[in-house]
């Protein structure tokens, strides 16, 4: 291991209220949940921060519930918890599909949805799902709470609107109408970080029979996860899939990196759009 823990301090709050107080008066603190990202950085000697906040014991952040037709998933829910939740299976199957492809079971048993959001990786597997689902991130601090649309949460590569004294406490997902779709393309089903990852909802039909606009989000092709509003609008107005693919290619900005090339990602992103759209119900 290249990193060292000798000069670091760990605070273990007994409750969420304790944790928020510590963030307020003892900060800056690095919140620590399942450690599936933080301890990789520790191993490589790239972990920043000297004071850490151990959230793992805060069971109040592990709840999954539906209130007023909104699905609420606590920040500490693990991928395994999501996969096994009947509520998530029935309301948000595309999140279950994404959770199944995160790491292997050891990572699924420890990694949390709050951590995936906070880590702010453009390749985060659950983020396109949350973006396509119009999810809202619930954030608390000692001063109060606020709710931020996932689409407005990220400000750039690995940066977000989260303040230093704020903690992600959960994510809220309104009821989704229509078919849900998820696809991750990587080197292997388990353990690989995505080359391209897409989630989409086709919207179904409204009460008058009119088709609702699809909602499409994509990861690993820009500094943050992105929604594709122009592609969505084109498909909603009856554009051909060829035209929609052209618009999608204008809306993404992939790069060459260790996992893939920009050209491959552009091709795969366009193919995924066609794959999603060809599976919708006709008529």
């Amino acid at each position: 291991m290249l990193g060292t823990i000798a000069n670091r301090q760990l605070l273990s709050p007994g409750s969420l209220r304790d944790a928020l107080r510590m963030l307020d008066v003892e900060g800056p603190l690095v919140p620590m949940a399942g450690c599936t990202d933080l301890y990789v950085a520790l191993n490589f000697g790239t972990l920043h921060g000297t004071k850490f906040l151990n959230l793992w014991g805060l069971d109040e952040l592990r709840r999954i519930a539906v209130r007023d037709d909104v699905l609420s998933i606590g920040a500490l829910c693990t991928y395994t918890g999501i996969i096994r939740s009947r509520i998530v299976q029935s309301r948000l199957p595309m999140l279950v599909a994404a959770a199944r492809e995160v790491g292997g079971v050891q990572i699924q048993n420890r990694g949390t949805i709050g951590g995936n959001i906070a880590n702010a990786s453009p390749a985060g597997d659950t983020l396109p799902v949350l973006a396509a689902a119009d999810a809202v991130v619930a954030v608390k601090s000692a001063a109060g709470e606020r709710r931020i649309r996932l689409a407005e949460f990220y400000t750039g590569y690995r940066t977000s609107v989260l303040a230093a004294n704020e903690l992600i406490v959960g994510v809220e997902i309104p009821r989704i109408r229509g078919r849900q779709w998820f696809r991750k393309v990587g080197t292997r089903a388990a353990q690989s970080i995505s080359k391209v990852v897409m989630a989409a909802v086709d919207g179904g039909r409204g009460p008058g029979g009119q088709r609702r606009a699809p909602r499409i989000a994509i990861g690993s092709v820009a500094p943050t996860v992105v929604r594709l509003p122009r592609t969505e609008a084109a498909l909603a107005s009856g554009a051909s899939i060829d035209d929609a693919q052209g618009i999608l290619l204008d809306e993404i900005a992939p790069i060459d990196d260790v996992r893939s090339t920009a050209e491959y990602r552009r091709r795969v992103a366009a193919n995924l759009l066609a794959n999603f759209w060809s599976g919708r119900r006709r008529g």
Partner: protein
Amino acid sequence: MQFTLNGKRVRLDVHPMTRLLDALREPCGLTGTKEGCGEGECGACTVLVDRIPVNACLVPLAQVAGARVTTIEGLGGRHPLQRAFVEHGGAQCGICTPGMILAAVALGPRPSLKTIKMGLAGNICRCTGYSAIYRSVERAGVHARNHR
């Protein structure tokens, strides 16, 4: 820091951010748990925490306070999975073997081949090509039945 290790209460006076892997191998002296990649990719350091497989290289010791930790030493050398790995060529160089066996323990008795493949997807082996490992886990169910 207190937890239960292979059925015995232990108390360690080390930094709470110590990796569970290092705590097991050094102060506890249980070197059956191997370090492969150190980044949660290979599964060589798999142990069970409250019967759930985790990568010990990514777990701070503070997060197992009060928990039950099981390592390969806790299976005692006579577990049906250990016998099956020996008899069916599931182990070659041996580095992945403790982690493979503990991940397989968590699958319960008589898992299907599909369940085995999914359950061991986070454990990498560079020797066997996996077939012998899958066969060992499948055959362990038979050993377990004869063992009773």
